[in-house]
């Protein structure tokens, strides 16, 4: 009986220390989530401005523009940019992205991986990937994005690649986040259908094509950066949620174990008393 009580006590202790860890992780994730959400808000004016301008130029010049970024290169590989996390304990966040990767990515595609969890997943499945931007999800460095876009647009203009797609996790609200696949290049003009074009007679200096050659890389930078910040926000939200659940579960478990412990203690006391009484009666 005594050994049973001791083992229950030991379990309570171990669950309690687990609870401390999950509680701490939850608090860290909450504050990080607030930070990345603010960042996402700050980015919005820039992102929507760039998107509106691109939409306006493309809409008002429909059919007249012969730009390399609007045409698909028929032969050439597809490039994927996939965003995962570098830290664990974030619930189903990575698993959901992996599922999308498994469904989307073919053997001869080029994969740019962001986040070390995704990298180890791909190594495990013997898929090659580019690891130059693995830590982008922790640095959130815009200069690195500029470098990445420079590299990709160069390949696209050289007709080495046919398409650029991105796999990221959309942040719907604090509890909902879903992985999404979006085509970055060639630019899908149907995405701009909900944006109203205000002015049809814009002057382009020196010409529309030249302006687009400058604007589209900027557009890609802002879109990729936006998706990156959004994915990191989803990661933190997912971590906060799963850590909150873990803390709740630990609390529940501690309650159950405490009940069992008290029952065992009570049984031991009753046993002792009945032994003493039996001993006294025998005399």
């Amino acid at each position, binding site marked *: 009986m005594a050994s049973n009580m001791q083992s229950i006590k030991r379990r309570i202790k171990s669950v309690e220390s687990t609870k401390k860890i999950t509680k701490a992780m939850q608090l860290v994730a909450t504050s990080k989530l607030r930070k990345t959400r603010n960042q996402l808000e700050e980015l919005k*004016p*820039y992102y929507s401005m760039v998107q509106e301008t691109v939409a306006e130029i493309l809409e008002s010049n429909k059919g007249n523009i012969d730009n390399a970024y609007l045409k698909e290169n028929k032969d050439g590989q597809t490039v994927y940019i996939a965003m995962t996390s570098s830290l664990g304990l974030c619930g189903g966040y990575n698993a959901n992205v992996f599922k999308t990767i498994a469904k989307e990515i073919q053997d001869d595609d080029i994969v740019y991986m962001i986040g070390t969890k995704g990298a180890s997943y791909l190594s495990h499945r013997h898929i090659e990937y580019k690891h130059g931007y693995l830590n982008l999800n922790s640095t959130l460095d815009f200069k690195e994005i500029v470098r990445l876009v420079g590299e990709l647009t160069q390949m696209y203009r050289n007709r080495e690649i046919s398409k650029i797609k991105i796999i990221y996790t959309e942040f719907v609200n604090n509890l909902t986040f879903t992985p999404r696949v979006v085509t970055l290049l060639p630019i899908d003009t149907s995405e701009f259908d909900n944006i109203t074009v205000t*002015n049809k007679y814009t002057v*382009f200096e*020196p010409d529309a094509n030249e*302006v687009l050659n400058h*604007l589209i890389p900027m557009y890609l930078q802002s879109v990729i950066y936006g998706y990156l910040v959004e994915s990191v926000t989803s990661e933190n939200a997912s971590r906060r949620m799963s850590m909150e659940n873990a803390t709740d579960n630990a609390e529940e478990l501690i309650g159950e174990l405490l009940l069992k412990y008290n029952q065992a203690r009570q049984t031991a006391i009753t046993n002792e008393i009945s032994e003493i009484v039996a001993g006294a009666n025998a005399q």
Partner: protein
Amino acid sequence: MKQFKLKIVTPKGIYKETDIEMLNLKTTAGQIGILANHIPLASAIDISEMNYIENGERKTFAIAGGFVYVNDEETTIIANAIESPEEIDIRRAEEAKQRAEGRLHQSQSDIDIMRAEIALKKAINRIYVKNNG
């Protein structure tokens, strides 16, 4: 003089939103000046000095490339980086200049040389604006 609205956005949020009389900047096709009631215009901005006149006072900035879009309601500048002379870290700019020059001498591939040239241009522009702005 008649004023018009200017909005400058960067990836870090809205940098400035103000009413100005005149905007001077260098597009990839050359120097232009924008006054109120300008026709709608879209153009890429070179790595250059940019200035505007706000309430009779000229304010100068270093812009590391970007995009300008003029329409009836407002003029928008989209920039990856923009700094006033007070915000420019001259030591960082000098260091960046030296780094870029070093890379220009060593680099073999065209892409590296192109990147170093852009970095050098940005650094020189910052130093120029800091000293003359």
